[in-house]
């Protein structure tokens, strides 16, 4: 009799340990996925900032009378370099996106510039990084959503409480820039 009770207790303990390990690992894995998504965004933001001086160098000769447009791009880049928190980064990046959009729109008036192989190349690269940022951001928010759903519903909530994990913030994307990934190709 005592033996049976002992066996049942051991089985129950193992059962609960397995559930605990499962939830522990899942929470940690999701958290790593979120960190990794952010690292992806960060890499792309840096790459984008690095491409801007090249672009300015190429464009300068052609667009002498577009000082305002050029300056807004330079300023947005400076803001991006200064940004610290994820949200600051994203906001500065949105600014840069807007500035680049008007620069490329203005470039339509300069046939010589549009025929420049270097310019075309930079435009492709910038579109690529911009899309990558948009999709990393989407993946980041998707991952945060899965994480938050897990730590806010029972029983995940209990484990999260035990591990001292709280819900994470999604990156806020202003309405105007929702359509960002669909830039003119």
């Amino acid at each position, binding site marked *: 009799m005592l033996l049976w009770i002992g066996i049942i207790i051991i089985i129950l303990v193992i059962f609960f340990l397995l559930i605990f390990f499962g939830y522990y690992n899942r929470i940690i894995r999701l958290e790593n996925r979120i960190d990794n998504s952010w690292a992806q965004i960060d890499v792309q933001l840096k790459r984008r900032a690095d491409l801007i001086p090249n672009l300015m160098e190429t464009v300068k000769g052609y667009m002498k009378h577009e000082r305002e447009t050029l300056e807004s791009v330079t300023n947005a880049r400076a803001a991006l370099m200064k940004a610290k928190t994820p949200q600051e980064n994203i906001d500065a990046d949105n600014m840069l996106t807007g500035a680049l959009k008007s620069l490329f729109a203005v470039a339509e008036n300069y046939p010589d510039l549009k025929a420049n192989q270097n310019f075309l190349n930079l435009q492709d690269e910038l579109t690529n990084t911009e899309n990558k940022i948009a999709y990393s951001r989407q993946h980041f928010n998707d991952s945060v959503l899965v994480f938050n759903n897990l730590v806010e519903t029972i029983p995940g909530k209990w484990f999260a409480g035990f591990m001292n994990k709280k819900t994470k913030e999604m990156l806020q994307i202003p309405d105007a820039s929702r359509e960002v990934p*669909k830039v003119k190709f």
Partner: protein
Amino acid sequence: MQEKVLVEDHIRRNKRQTIYVCGLMALLFIVVVFSIGYIFFGNILISLIFALPIALGYIAITYSISVSAVLSAAKARPANPLLREEKLLIHRVEEMSIAAGLPMPKVYVQDSEYINAFATGRDPKEGVICVTTGALKKLNQEELEGVIAHEMSHIKNYDIRLATITIAVVGAIALMSEILFYSMFWGGAGRGRKGEGNLILLALAILFVILAPIFARLTYLAISRRREYLADSTGAYLTRNPGGLAKALEKIRDDHPTVKPKGSKTVAPLYISNPFKKVDASSLSSTHPPINERIRRLRSM
């Protein structure tokens, strides 16, 4: 009008259905092995010793050489980043791999006038996406993105592995029933059997082995069609833009190159649209769902 269905629900329902189909496939395969044992030896144990290792070995070999076999059947070559069209293709694949949270797949190009694409590979870590030069020429970047998202979804949903396994299992079943057929023709089968064996059961076993390849093929086609819808919806979820793929499918529907499609028919189910069939009918023998129905579903998302 059908009400709008949430993309996530699409995905969940399709995934559940696929598990059933896979189970059916495995069951079919096991029954074939047992039937062969019964017909040949009147003894299931002996068939386990002979038929099972042969069949499993065949499946394992097919599985391990599948990727290079598919790529060489399609005469595909790695994308060249020095050409602008192919560089942009690589860019779109990079973006979609980020959206899907998957490692970057290898990018291949197939010289063909047709607008088409396929994904292959054994698992998401070593995925391959191949696009025709026709698609690069005729699709704009938004449409190309839709097509890549569809292929990336095949990788993400483990369709590439499923397709490879199913092709291997269908092949193994066909191979075994062929062996049985020839050996019966030469009078080899049933020699080891005792006289009092149940004749009805024997007849059933033979009938089953004959019908099995047809069953297997139909099951495979059902999977393939369902997986296309699933990849369409997952792809739309990745780009958040179902219109891109819908427009690409419209272009595929209205595009009729004069040259004959190249490549092998066995890999047809892998493509985004069947390269060997232009008739838009939903029949049991189609590898893909009707293109108009796919467009309609994408438009309703």
